[in-house]
């Protein structure tokens, strides 16, 4: 048609319709790798009974301190127990405690944070000073105090009090972060609209504020799983966490391992590696999740 708007001669490949998962993997390759690592750990932990070649508790004095071989991939410990199997069962312990401690810590922290921001004023003041006090304890000291005070309380093979001990230091940190996110949401007109509609406090907090802090919550939840795993390993190493003979990574580093690590370095190498990989994977995954959920990074 004469004189109509010219069309430059450029063509673009048709936009591919990709799933959200594929988009995540493309934009956050490190996140994808760490996600796979987490899935492998999860798989190992859940199906440990089928994956592990040996029973983690069976003592075999015929194979004490055996170096890594085709029979024992990661060698054996001072009792002849298969380290590979113990690392796999250890994943179950670490992930269970890490998951529940982080879940408990983050949920309570988020509720305190949102409520503190929503009510503001004196409530906020009191809650925040209490959080300041909590934050002034080193995280490990706080956990030690809680373990010492509560003692042990086994439920289905997990020490519930250990979960609490690990969760409690998480609470103030999450409350702080969630509060600041909630403070900005509190000022949004849609919260005013809900107040003007005469909705109750519970409804406004649960229905209108909480879903909008879901993104920072999710990020912290993954990152604090790493923290919880690390804390569980530390407490177990100090003899205050998981006890023998339960396979746990921190525990595997203490006891006999410290006597024999010169002759049998595999005894500390593999559990140590497991802790590092787990913590690294959850931290990386949390980071990528943050970048991914942040609209500023979206093209």
């Amino acid at each position, binding site marked *: 048609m004469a004189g*109509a*708007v*010219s069309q*430059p001669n450029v063509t673009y490949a048709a936009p591919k319709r990709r799933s959200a998962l594929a988009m995540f993997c493309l934009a956050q390759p490190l996140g994808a790798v760490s996600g796979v690592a987490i899935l492998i750990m999860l798989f190992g932990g859940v199906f440990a009974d089928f994956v592990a070649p040996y029973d983690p508790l069976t003592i075999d004095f015929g194979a004490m301190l055996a170096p890594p071989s085709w029979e024992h991939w990661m060698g054996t410990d001072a009792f002849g127990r298969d380290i590979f199997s113990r690392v796999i069962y250890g994943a179950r312990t670490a992930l269970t405690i890490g998951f529940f401690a982080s879940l408990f810590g983050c949920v309570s922290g988020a509720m305190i944070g949102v409520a503190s921001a929503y009510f503001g004023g004196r409530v906020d003041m009191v809650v925040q000073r209490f959080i300041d006090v909590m934050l002034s304890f080193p995280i490990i000291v706080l956990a030690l105090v809680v373990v010492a005070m509560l003692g042990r309380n086994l439920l289905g093979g997990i020490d519930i009090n250990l979960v609490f001990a690990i969760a409690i230091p998480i609470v103030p940190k999450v409350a702080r972060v969630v509060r600041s996110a909630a403070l900005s949401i509190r000022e949004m007109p849609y919260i005013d609209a809900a107040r*003007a509609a005469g909705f109750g406090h519970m*409804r406004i907090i649960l229905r209108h504020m909480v879903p909008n802090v879901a993104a920072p919550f999710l990020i912290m939840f993954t990152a604090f799983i790493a923290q919880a795993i690390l804390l569980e390993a530390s407490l177990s190493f100090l003899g205050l966490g998981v006890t023998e003979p339960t396979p746990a990574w921190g525990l595997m580093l203490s006891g006999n391992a410290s006597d024999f690590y010169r002759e049998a370095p595999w005894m500390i190498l593999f559990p140590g590696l497991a802790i590092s990989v787990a913590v690294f994977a959850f931290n990386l995954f949390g980071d990528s999740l943050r970048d991914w959920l942040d609209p500023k990074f979206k093209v």
Partner: protein
Amino acid sequence: MSDSNVLLSVEDLHVHFVTSRGVVRAVEGVSYQVRRGEVLAIVGESGCGKSVSSLAIMRLLAKPAGRVVHGKIMFEGVNLLDLTDEEMRERRGRDISMIFQEPMTSLNPVLPIGLQIMEPLFIHLKMTEEQARARAVELLSLVGITDPERRLDQYPHQFSGGMRQRVMIAIGLACNPKLIIADEPTTALDVTIQAQILELMKELSRKLNIALVIITHNLGVVARYADRVNVMYAARVVEKGTADDVFLRPRHPYAMGLMRSVPRLDRPRGAKLETIEGLPPNLLDPPKGCRFAARCQFRADICAQDPALEEIEPGHLSACLRAKEIAAGEIGREQTVIEAGGKREGRAGEKLLSVTGLKKFFEVTRKTGTFSSVKSEVRAVNDVSFDISPGETLGLVGESGCGKTTVGRLILRLETPTEGAIKFKGQDISKLGAAELRPIRRKIQVIFQDPYSSLNPRMTIGQIIAEPLLVYKIVPDAAAAKKRVAELLEAVGLFAYMAERYPHEMSGGQRQRVGIARALAMEPECIVCDEPVSALDVSIQGQIINLLENLQKRLGLTYLFIAHDLAVVRHISDRVAVMYLGRMMELADGDALYAEPLHPYTKALLDAAPIPDPSIEKSRAARTLGGEIPSPLRPPSGCVFHTRCLLADDACKATIPEIREVKPGHLVACLKV
């Protein structure tokens, strides 16, 4: 016009953005020229490509998504697109400078403004510290900042919005550029400040022979200051010509519609606004043929073809296939008959809402030193009284910080008044507790300004509207709620299927309709509309105003309509109240207030408001109100307006004027009336 006079020439510019959702063709085949010392306005609604085309000139498109795929940008005979980054950097700030919309965020808060003005001088002109300082002082006085020596060392937070925009202009002028591109330079400013800034820019452009490209959506601004106008729609220029051509003889139906859909202060108030129905097309998948066809009232079969931008008369181009018919007066002449706005009958009897002596003071702590601070009060609302009859609309106008929004929030009881009474149907609600307030909250609802943040992003439209229905048990169950949601969506001009969508899937105008539906769900009697249209595009504004008026008629609603746009307020309001620094200045019947403003502040406001008609605008003397709005922390003594008032004398500084009835129904707070 000799060719050597052309400073900037954009030829067949195409800009594309590659996004994960596809390719957005943001600018298509745009060509225009800017001559030395000329003011060109680019007008259009959001997303039409007006800002993108000028960012392309500065080569500041967001990379890597945005790219110029075709075209030339000739600046003084050099194609800017061929330059290296280094060469381009030399031109930016020196030959071409840019002024942005947000004066609050375009200055660096941690650097004194003097340094920010001097920076381009060091870089481009290699000035010494002394020279640069002298030039900075000169520039600040040029843009009308008093005591420039001292102010050079101050930080941006010590300047008001209007002052910051002046500083931005000073930075823009620093290296004597030949071209300034101003992207919505006054949109974030108040009416009286806007007039000052525009007046300044126009004067400077004339005095220093600088070409000015103003990008705006405000037609009034264009009429007053532009020599030539480009109207853009959906990535293309649809009409261009001199300001007189475009305003007095628009030849593209979109431009014609735009002119008609703004309420105007210089015309009798119509009963209904003419609007352009529908929404602009999605540039990810633009329609074939004329892009405006879907919304055009003159659409014909021929419009399935792509229209070219063609000359209708010398220098006046339109991209409409029926432009000749429009020019010949065959179509478009027959304006839809607008019935004059009905005479407003006073409503006697019981008042629905009555506010007396309302005050709200916020306590703030102001730092005076590292370890010292003083407590002081911001008198956001100070002694405001008015009442509203059932079915009436009271307009509340004023500039930012005048307390109009706080009045709305007090009536909604989102804030508790410091003093005063708010009577709703005779019951004082100013001190009620949460439980007693609940039944009243249903009756007073709200529509907010920003359609982007007033809807919870995590809820679907259906959930948002159904929530109050279920909470207040207005409907028995979820199925009934769904039915009611569908009815409400249709009542506000949306479709029932939209209930499944999330807010981010809708446009600004659609979201504002959802906000209205949410308010209506409670079956309120009174709605506080807090700037309900100021965040919307011109053509959408008209739609929303008409919707509000229809709903008022049908449901007998009462509105408190808070806005800063005088023309919009006049159109919709029965009576209008003017506020300044927390106090009410004038309250009168809408027509009376605009025809015969009594308070000097009201007069100044009306003078500052631009009218979209170049012949009227250019004949109006520039009567800008000088000075700044004082801080509400330290309001002036006596009459708060005396610092800017032309009539003020010593009595005004001493006595706070009582608001009194000067004529029946016309209240003024001024000693000189």
